[in-house]
């Protein structure tokens, strides 16, 4: 309190927050009900009351470097208790959106992905890539009813590894910027050492459990995360396996001669089902609850619908393949590939990125 502080409001930032879900920010009159009703808000540095006034004042640098915006798990208790309808929970979401855009590299992609105006365009690169692949890539026709007949693996696999590499690079730059900001804001927990407890906490969904109002979000998010982690692991193993030539897709559903492959196949299908259930819970939560539907932003929809779309088209492609509906199976698989492409390529710029920023923020905050 003692030292004088010069406030330099970033008016553009205030407008961005207002536009990206924090539209009622200005209604806040600082009563601090939100900080008390939040089960996750720590005693010594409570949120989101302070973040609300900082956002009203346009203190961009301070907010984007504030780990507290990532400690919020968006349960909505503060919003439903807010006496002014200022929706602190939505403002925190808008701040996370702004942080992802701010730290993203390259910056223009951050802005493009978060803008509702560009959304159809976001799917154009994927459609072109896989369209070209289907039309012109040399095919290796092995047996009928294989996706590789149209989308040859020897092109798909290196392509996805290349994309993953670029995405990881973009994430690395974004996270490096984020950590630098965290450090300058005084969050000095040992991040590497903090990652393990943070992972444990995230996998157990401890914070979601403490989140007061909405219990089904706990299951929705838990299933989606676990299913996603499982599929990411599977995809990597099978991708590498097939590239080095020890595995051949499609893996068999059950073949006593290939027990490892069979188990992996079973596991992958289970993971897809788990994500689908989790994703539908999260989606249902936002669609059926009128208040939530109104406050869900484009940023939320893009991520949630893409991930649900990926899993849905994935399962559908498999069903069509087994049902030998050849034309439909290639068409749906094309959509599946385009959606995966969007999910991965835009990961550092979409809500997807919350996974990494939140983990790092939790690690940087150290033990609660």
């Amino acid at each position: 309190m003692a030292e004088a502080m010069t406030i330099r409001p970033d008016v553009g930032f205030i407008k961005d927050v207002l536009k990206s879900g924090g539209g009622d920010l200005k209604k806040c009159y600082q009563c601090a009900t939100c900080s008390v009703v939040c089960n996750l808000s720590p005693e010594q540095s409570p949120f989101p009351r302070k973040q609300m006034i900082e956002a009203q004042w346009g203190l961009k640098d301070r907010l984007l470097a504030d780990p507290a915006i990532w400690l919020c798990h968006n349960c909505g208790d503060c919003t439903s208790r807010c006496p002014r309808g200022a929706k602190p929970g939505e403002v925190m979401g808008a701040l996370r959106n702004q942080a992802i855009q701010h730290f993203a590299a390259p910056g223009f992609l951050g802005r493009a992905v978060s803008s509702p105006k560009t959304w159809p365009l976001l799917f154009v690169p994927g459609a072109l890539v896989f369209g070209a692949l289907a039309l012109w890539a040399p095919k290796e026709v092995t047996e009928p009813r294989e996706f590789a007949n149209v989308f040859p693996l020897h092109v798909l696999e290196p392509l996805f590894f290349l994309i993953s590499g670029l995405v990881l690079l973009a994430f690395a730059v974004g996270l490096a910027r984020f950590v630098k900001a965290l450090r300058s804001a005084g969050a000095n927990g040992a991040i590497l050492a903090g990652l393990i407890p943070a992972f444990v906490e995230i996998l157990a969904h401890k914070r979601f459990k403490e989140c007061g109002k909405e219990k089904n979000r706990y299951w929705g998010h838990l299933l989606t995360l676990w299913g996603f982690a499982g599929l990411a692991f599977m995809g990597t193993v099978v991708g590498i396996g097939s590239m080095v030539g020890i595995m051949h897709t499609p893996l068999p559903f059950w073949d006593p001669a290939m027990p490892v492959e069979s188990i992996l196949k079973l596991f992958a299908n289970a993971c897809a089902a788990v994500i689908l259930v989790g994703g539908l819970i999260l989606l249902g939560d936002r669609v059926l609850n009128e208040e939530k539907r109104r406050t869900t932003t484009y940023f939320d929809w893009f991520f949630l619908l893409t991930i649900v779309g990926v899993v849905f088209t994935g399962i559908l492609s498999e069903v069509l393949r087994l049902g030998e509906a050849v034309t439909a199976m290639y068409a749906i698989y094309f959509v599946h590939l385009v959606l995966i492409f969007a999910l991965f390529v835009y990961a550092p710029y979409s809500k997807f990125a919350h996974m990494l920023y939140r983990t790092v923020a939790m690690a940087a905050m150290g033990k609660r």
Partner: protein
Amino acid sequence: MMQPVTESPNGKGILVIGGGIAGMTAAIEAAETGCDVVLVEKAPYLGGRVSRINQYFPKLCPPTCGLEINFKRIKNNARITVLSQAEVAEVTGTPGDYRVTVKVSPRFVTDACTLCGQCAEVCPAERPDEYNMGLGTTKAAYLPYAMAFPAAYAIDRAACKEGCTACAEACAYGAVDLAQEPEEKVFEVASVVAATGWTPYDANKIDNLGFGRYPNVVTNVIMERLAAPNGPTAGKILRPSDQAQPKSVAFVQCAGSRDENHLPYCSAVCCAASLKQATYVKAMDPAAEAVIFYIDIRTPGRLEDFRTKVVEEQGVELVKGKVAKVEEDPVTHDLLVTAEDVLGGRKVTRRFHMVVLATGIVPNTDGLPAGFTLDEFRFIAAPEGKTGLYGAGCVRRPEEVSATVQDATGAALKAYQCVVRSAHHG
């Protein structure tokens, strides 16, 4: 019996709904200009909420002297007709020419009552003490409060035992008349002033603050009764769970007010009321802790000095941060109050013996006769165009007693203008 008011030499009269401080003021001020006034009060007594206050802010004097002067002005003024236990059923007509139907419930006690109390002595039945916010009970034959006006006992027949006539038999003055019937009276008046007052916001609806679940969470209106010498504890502030004198009291401001989920508006008086009640705690025990948790302390005008005095001279502590959680220690019934100390930048949970919720003002506009327009918060709105219907006091906006008196005086003038116009045109 009282006669319906007809044409007076100065034109038709005025009817005032509500016999609290606003209604009494409007009635007296209008009558003292020379016009006839009917004062209609729902309860068996005048004085309303002011009579239940322990002390006014900022002067910290009891309301008794002011009420006594008003009662005397009413008694001495032949132009005022007081109808207690009466409610307006209908208002028809136009400005300057209204017909008002009033339903009067029987008191079952006549003017012959000498306040000897024999009826209550023999009465076998009890009723919740509405005057003391339900903190105790009275007999079914009861005097509403010591200086009640009209000065007569009343009998709550709904609470009586079937067929009981003990009070009538015990009354040496023949003042108990159990055969009284409800009456309907019609008045022709030039103007109607609604001074129906307010009701405290129902604290049970604020589910995170524990009222109704934890005995030692009370409201500010209950606190007034606990502190009042004529209240259920004879003026000793005792906490409900164990009747012990609290050593620490938290005041929770904006308990329901300035809150979209409850009352969206500021109730205007609760800040000064809590500062005042903190002085009750300090007067009882200067070492007791009195802490006011607030969003903004709203003490405009002369109340600014009051605030400074209470905080600096009496050592009342102010914490900026709204209380959003009250929990109870089940063993001691002490309360754990959580707020974010905004100026200190951290969350605090503190233990108190008692919590007072500063609940707000809800206007009594349900059941108001047709013709009054209400604003977005259901207070009586400022009249538009030509009217003879006026609001006065807290039914018009949340305000302290002195402002209410001024407001009611203004309403009396507006009503009187209707009277004068009706005399010229009638």
